[in-house]
């Protein structure tokens, strides 16, 4: 069983900001059903269109993905778009008190959705994001470190 921190558990069991913002300024969507994880992120900006005043999400994914999304929406509120863009998936993991190594990729989705949302809002071209982040090798390297934990039990 994963060693989730109390913060991860808390954000998984009581996720903040689930839902949608009908008049969102920016929407970012990454992942797909086929991938097993997907995230849709809504951002509402202040009147100067500079600071994020509200954020909501919908996530299809594991506990880490749900907790990461919840954490992300909390983190971006009150930030300018540029400040928000500076958030890395490590920052999300840190906010949660850490994620198991094998689950770090679940926090990447949050960062990607944010990038997509802001890029679309700014009218930049969005490179397709889904399916291009690295989940790491499923089998051990020479040193015996593994990412995959499927035990076939």
């Amino acid at each position, binding site marked *: 069983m994963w060693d989730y921190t109390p913060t991860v558990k808390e954000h998984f069991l009581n996720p903040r900001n689930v839902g949608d913002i009908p008049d969102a300024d920016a929407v970012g969507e990454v992942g797909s*059903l086929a991938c*097993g994880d*997907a995230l849709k992120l809504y951002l509402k900006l202040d009147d100067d269109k500079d600071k994020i005043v509200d954020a909501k999400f919908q996530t299809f994914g594991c506990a880490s993905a749900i907790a990461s999304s919840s954490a992300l929406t909390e983190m971006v509120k009150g930030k300018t778009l540029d400040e928000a863009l500076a958030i890395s998936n490590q920052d999300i993991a840190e906010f949660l008190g850490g994620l198991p190594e094998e689950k770090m990729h679940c926090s990447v989705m949050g960062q990607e959705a944010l990038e997509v949302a802001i890029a679309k809002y700014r009218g930049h071209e969005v490179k397709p994001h889904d399916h291009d982040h690295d989940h790491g090798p499923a089998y051990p390297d020479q040193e015996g470190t593994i990412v995959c934990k*499927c035990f076939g039990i």
Partner: protein
Amino acid sequence: MKEIYLDNNATTKVDEAVFEEMRPYFCELYGNPSSMHFFGGQVQQKVDEARKRVAALLGASPDEIIFTACGTESDNAAIRSALEVFPEKRHVITSRVEHPAVLTQCRNLTQKGYRVTEIGVDSEGQLDMAELKAAVDADTAIVSLMYANNETGVIFPIEEAAAIVKAKGALFHTDAVQAVGKVPINLAASKIDLLSLSGHKLHAPKGIGVLYLRRGTPFRPFMVGGHQEKSRRAGTENAAAIIALGKACELAGQNMAIENSQVKALRDRLQTELMARIPHARINGGAAERLPNTVNIAFEFVEGEAILLLLNELGICASSGSACTSGSLEPSHVLRAMGVPFTCAHGSIRFSLSRYTTAGEIDTVIRELPPIIAHLRQMSPFGREFLKK
């Protein structure tokens, strides 16, 4: 929190009677069965008795029973032995839905120049017999097909498969780790050459397994060293665990009817009620013959790990073939082989019952799971779209 344990295909509770049977063999009767003194000799007698009990459950003879450390060892030993016995044969057959203890081993063989055929299954998880028939040839050293699938409970027509294989001169091995104790097996009237079982799946402790080896079947040991197990498996006999397994097999024989009535009835109620209460769900392998204790249900638009952890908050223990429990990208190889759509495969949950499962526990799951699925679908972008419609 008192657990509601519905993960018996992962491992089972040691039966109290099994524990009592093995208990003296730790601190009191701890002798080495192979020793030259009475203190070891009395343990040897109990090991022999256990061997008879295991043999009786399988319809085998005691000298056909080799004690190993687990199901994985038995699987590894069976396949490696066949390759050593027939060094000239360079073909191995297995199925796409085997347990990793067989599948990993077979896949590793391709790197050593072996031809490995993985027989496919249909959408219900049932073996493609025509494909099997076409695949066996004179070059085939061994065919290893599981008796029952650990994830779906689907039972393969193993005797039929064994007959096809034996006609071509290959050895036939079956991983019966999930079948033993749940469905009757009579090796006396069978064409199976080698069979694996694992104690901890039938209320014996972890760390003990059996490789059944039909009398006269050529064999090379996997673990070499001392002359234990008639030189077929080296290492000091794990006497306490062997004795425990003997008792567990005796009890399994006595409880076989319960598995197929009481346990099956609870499983049936669980699946019927969940299907009635939760839309967009399907039973993986639901139309195939299955173990009486297992049901694997796919819930669309949600992800398995999230379901498991919410169940876990209520003390309900189940398992999933979801990739997300493993942190790897791909969902269960079993569900993929069955062509279960990715949308479902990710949200598949296995409930596996035992003779300890109560009606009250099943009621709790029937009550608690529907709102969990609804909650997660509410959170999922796909689920929300579907709910809007």
